[in-house]
């Protein structure tokens, strides 16, 4: 059952991912990408990370993709019909494939360590995923969290500066 679901979603994810690179129209690519994101969200749920799934949908599918589509519309280069691909398609395919081979090699050939933490599906059940995240975030990873805030600040300021029309 789970396996079936996995492969099904995987198929969708891969296909939509491929169409991201394939579609002539950026908007279509964007929509495909959203699809991929949703597939990933499904996986997150399957992996007992509902909170992440939620964020995935809200932040990615929601915020980021909306922003992108917004920009696409803004610049209204919706369907510029020039050739979509550059030359060197074969090279790119080859490289991508090689990359995958290598990755596969060190995934298949390599070995992840056994369980080190205490968080199991049961634990998630008991505490609730959000609380676990929050706890980790505000104890162990407090500093990165703060840095992230700075990062966002910088991004905002930068975006503002760059997109202002005149000084």
């Amino acid at each position, binding site marked *: 059952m789970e396996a079936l679901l996995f492969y099904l979603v995987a198929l969708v994810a891969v296909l939509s991912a491929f169409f991201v690179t394939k579609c002539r129209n950026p908007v279509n690519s964007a929509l495909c990408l959203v699809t991929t994101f949703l597939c990933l969200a499904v996986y997150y749920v399957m992996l007992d990370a509902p909170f992440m799934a939620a964020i995935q949908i809200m932040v990615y599918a929601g915020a980021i993709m909306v922003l992108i589509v917004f920009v696409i519309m803004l610049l209204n280069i919706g369907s510029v019909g020039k050739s979509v691909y550059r030359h060197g398609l074969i090279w790119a395919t080859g490289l991508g494939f090689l990359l995958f081979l290598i990755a596969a090699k*060190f995934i298949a050939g390599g070995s992840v360590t056994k369980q080190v933490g205490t968080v199991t599906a049961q634990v998630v059940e008991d505490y609730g995923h959000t609380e676990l995240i929050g706890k980790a975030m505000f104890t162990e990873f*407090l500093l990165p969290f703060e840095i992230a805030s700075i990062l966002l600040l910088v991004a905002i300021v930068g975006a503002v500066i760059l997109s202002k029309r005149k000084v």
Partner: protein
Amino acid sequence: MENLAQIAMESVNFQAIMPSLVLCCFGMVLLLVSVFLERGRTAPVAWLSVVALIITGLVSIGAWNEPQAGFAGSVVLDNFATFFNITFLIAAGLTILMSDSYLHREGYPVGEYYPLILFTTAGAMWMASGTDLMTIFLGLEVLSVSLYVLAGFFRGQLRSNEAGLKYFFLGAFSTGFMLYGVALLYGVSGTTKVAGIAQAIAAMPDAATNPMVIGGAAMLSIGFLFKIGAAPFHMWTPDVYQGAPTPITAFMSAGPKAAAFAAFMRVTYISLDSMQTDMSALFWILAVLTMTIGNFIAISQRDIKRMLAYSSISHAGYALVGMVAWNAVGFSGILFYMLVYTFMNIGAFAVLVLLGKKGEDNLTLDGVAGFGYKRPFLGVALCIFLFSLMGLPPTAGFTGKFFIFAGAIKAGYIWLAVIGVLNSAVSLYYYLRVMVYMYFRDPVEDYSWVKLEMATVVSILIAIAGVLILGVLPGPVMELAKLSVF
């Protein structure tokens, strides 16, 4: 819920992040200040940011020799970090000093420029002091994102846009690889703490053969190598350096590069120490490749800014030699070299800043013909920096190179050292050529537009002082560099 707050608080140690903390506070304050200043008035922000840097400098010096760890081991403020922090601060300081008049000349008097530099510096500091890949990664991102902005800062200039975009895309692209590496390492070690990974790998019997470890290490390195500008991940460097505003180019070539080295060294020498043979073999090749490509391509450049970009690639190569050596001398060599490089390279760019006209600060060799006679001070200054970049005594460039090559030779990498010196022999040519034009050609223009802006001159003077002092009496600083390695 209050117990959560307690748990949160006990792991907090503000000592450990004090420098970056100070910088960020100043940064935010300055953002507000620049909002309330009327249009086109940036000088106060500039000076305040210099003050900020000085204060931060004092703070970080205060942390010397008393290592502070904190935030559940995600950051540590040891001598290593402090040495680099000082380097970043100097880089930022020199940059800011040369920036203000430049921004006005180019018509972008935007106050947010300075806070961004401060945030960049803070990000660099997190990279240098982060002991958790998460911290390092986020530091790197803060650094990168603000650099994307700064590189594309002249939004009206196509060159600047292009620089920003190229930097952005390639940066993001490399981030992807880096993250993949982190993920793999996380997979094999179950943690993202530098020390934890080290233990895990050390505990692993087949670490050297486990593809996931090696792959993770390699992929992780790529992120850093990209920022360092090591071949074959160097290709963004010339374009971005050429297109970005000159002070930013100066800053990029010194600060972020140093930051990348800092993080790279910490990760490599702590987490991946057990993989020395593989890693230094990798670095050997990269070092040779990098310095050779940088030097060779630089020869055929006529645009001085772009030439310096290539030269900075080759210098990254020299620094990598120190990584190959994999011994204390080599490490502290890199620390020292980064400091030296900050002085000499930013100094050189500062001269270029003064040399440029509005809108066209990419001057070609012919653009400096006979320049040395018209503006003796700038001429001499540029000569000093170029000699230092060549690595000629009695300048700092020589002592720095000596330090690094000493490390390599001590470790027995004779050929590497030979290749290195032969490379710097090649580099002589294009550095000398600048002087050829500056002094051996007759002036075609009177360089009337060149004004000796006070702040910029100050930064040049500081750089000269640094270059000469580190060249003649490098002892004390070398000693510090020695005390800074783990």
